[in-house]
């Protein structure tokens, strides 16, 4: 019931490493970027600086979820087209512009899988999996534990897996995750903790 407190203890040891990334954006940078967005709202050709800045990270975000160069390129192009089409509705609310782009990207990836009816790709690397294994305090042979964990994660809902993916496989700080998913930072932490508990229970159930 009061697992919120446990989160601070459990995840604190990772926070220092993950939060030291350059992914948090200062207020001044967001304000400056908002000026660029407003300029692009008046003149679409002025969207270029934003396109140049975010093409690479958005492409990578999509590639991790599709594992195919051409698919990622198509979806990425669709993301930026949608962004330009919806830019007139965008309002600055103290959250980085990138969060809005990631949200569009997330939706376009989901739409791609609805259209193709294929299984959603999740890219994982061994060092990220070992962070996750540490988190749920599992011991034993790494490969066996990894496979057990992936089997358990197969039972997660897409939303839950997305949180684990962003936090552990992409090393995003909670603040950024909250901004992308449009939830509070505290909520992101609580949900992550509960999903870790769920994974642990599923691993025990699967034996």
């Amino acid at each position: 019931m009061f697992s919120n407190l446990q989160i601070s203890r459990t995840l604190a040891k990772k926070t220092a490493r993950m939060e030291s990334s350059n992914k948090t954006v200062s207020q001044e940078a967001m304000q400056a970027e908002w000026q660029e967005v407003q300029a692009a709202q008046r003149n679409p050709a002025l969207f270029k600086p934003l396109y140049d800045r975010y093409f690479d990270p958005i492409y990578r975000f999509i590639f991790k979820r599709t594992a195919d160069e051409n698919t990622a390129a198509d979806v990425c192009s669709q993301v930026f087209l949608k962004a330009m089409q919806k830019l007139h509705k965008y309002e600055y609310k103290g959250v980085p512009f990138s969060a809005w782009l990631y949200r569009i990207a997330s939706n376009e990836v989901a739409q791609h899988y609805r259209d193709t009816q294929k299984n959603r790709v999740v890219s994982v690397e061994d060092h990220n999996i070992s962070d996750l294994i540490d988190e749920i305090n599992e011991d034993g042979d790494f490969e066996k534990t990894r496979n057990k964990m992936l089997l358990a994660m197969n039972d997660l809902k897409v939303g839950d897996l997305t949180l684990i993916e962003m936090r552990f496989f992409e090393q995003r700080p909670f603040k950024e995750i909250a901004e992308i998913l449009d939830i509070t930072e505290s909520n992101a932490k609580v949900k992550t903790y509960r999903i870790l508990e769920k994974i642990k229970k599923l691993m025990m159930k699967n034996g």
Partner: protein
Amino acid sequence: MKKDIYNFKINSPQPSSEDIAKHKDFDALLQKFQESPLPAEEELERKPRLVWLRYAAAAAAVALLIFFAKGIWTGGSNMTEQEYFASQPFVNPPLENIKPSFASQIVSANKGGVYEYENGSKLIVPAAAFVKSNGTIVEGDVDIKYREMHDFVDFFLSGIPMTYDSAGTQYILESAGMVEIYAEQDGERIQMQPGKEIKVELISFVDMPRLNVSPKYNIYKLNTSSKNWEYRDIDNIQIIEDMENEGFENEELNNLKINQQSTLARIETEEATLIRNLEASISMPLEPARPQKADSEQLSFDIDISENASAELRNLGQKYKNIIWHISPNSPAINPNALRVQWESMDLNPIDGIDYELTLINGNNRERVIVTPALTGDEFTTAMSVYQNELATYRKALETRESQLAKERSAIIERFSLQKAEAQKQYTSNIEAWKKANQDDPSINQLVRRKVVNRFIANEFGIWNCDRPLDPKDLEIEGNFVLDKDSKISNETAYLVNKNRNTIVRIYAKDGAKVNFDQKSDNLMWMVTKDNQIAVFSPKEFKSINQKKDKHTFNLKVEPNALKSEEDVRKVLRFKEM
């Protein structure tokens, strides 16, 4: 064999920046944008239900209206409880004629301030905290609306759900108090500026075990878009020691308490001293005096300012040629005979930049009057213009002073908050140790009502709740519902309250509904009839349920009196025997 949902790719190579750059082509994107039609109106997060609505026929739209109407829905006894409540408005006040009442405070949006309510609850509003819908900062006065909800009758009348869905598990939220806050200017809703926060200190009462010194609650915000409560923070809840010694009759406990109180008092004194010294370190700017306009109806003096007068008076005389001196409201009453005397001389001395002391002298006789200068015509207009400039300078100086003080003041407050938290932690630990050593004492877990203050940050308007999630394992039976032993009820909302839990549970009252209740406590159930009356299943009737059977027909009795106010509702919904 279970189907794989995800395709996990382990250690697969990622593209380089050069590979990615090959796909980058802004000119092609711009061309595509200029050629493409705008997409059909759709939300950023797709909702299949909205797609259905867009393509529904007119008849389906009518069905939708019926679907959302209050009262009996004729088709749906196959609906699950989740579907039933999803078909209702998320916040669903059950009695339309009983509207919530909000306290109203006029707040200066430029300055902010601390606003205290009758029961001691406070809102601490920062300066420049509000924006209009177009993003511009709000200036001038705004009307802050505030209401509190404390018990099950408040929760019932508000129609706010008290369930919390977290990672697929549904919890009941037991509340230590709930608030709703919003603001308007000239009748239009305004929002909080991103990054600004209102500090809330909510006074409430909580039932807790006698020696519970540190109740644990969280802060949740109601999200009407996602239709759920969102966890925001831990409730910084503190018992206000109204009942000084209750539970602390034991000498050892009492000593612990006294030590804790003196520790906290010492910390608070140190904090107050530091803040006072900090504020004294930067002097307050002097507020300019507003010029007064001469009033021909008032008793006044015409005084020639000589060369022997003080520098201040000589300056005043040089600036304004036609000063009239009115009797100040702060003056002692003037002796009417004094006006007939030929005074030999007088003395005029400034008091505070607004008032002056005029002493009329004739030999040994002196008459003392407080006067204030007033101006006429163009001189008044000029003086007002000067005053406005001086006032603007003064306000700027106030802001500068505040911004210089704010950072250090916050640091002091934070430092002492940590000290208080540490002291509280130590105290709690000492009490727990005492409880462990004295487990046989039956009074330890006895429930007592305590007055508390819940401190939290509200960074947006809406409904905020101080709660703890419960997942009680109560007795479950299948229920049918009947009104006055006569008419069967189905597809309605029933409300259930446990006297020992400060919350309310909604039940989808249909044949075979699952009803969960704690058979060891007092419970109360009711419904709102089509005639806006309340029908009740009393605590006494709950006690008479045969718990060996897993089914029961709940016969609710209609209370005949009309319900026109919250007070009427409270008379009906209570835990006394009916």
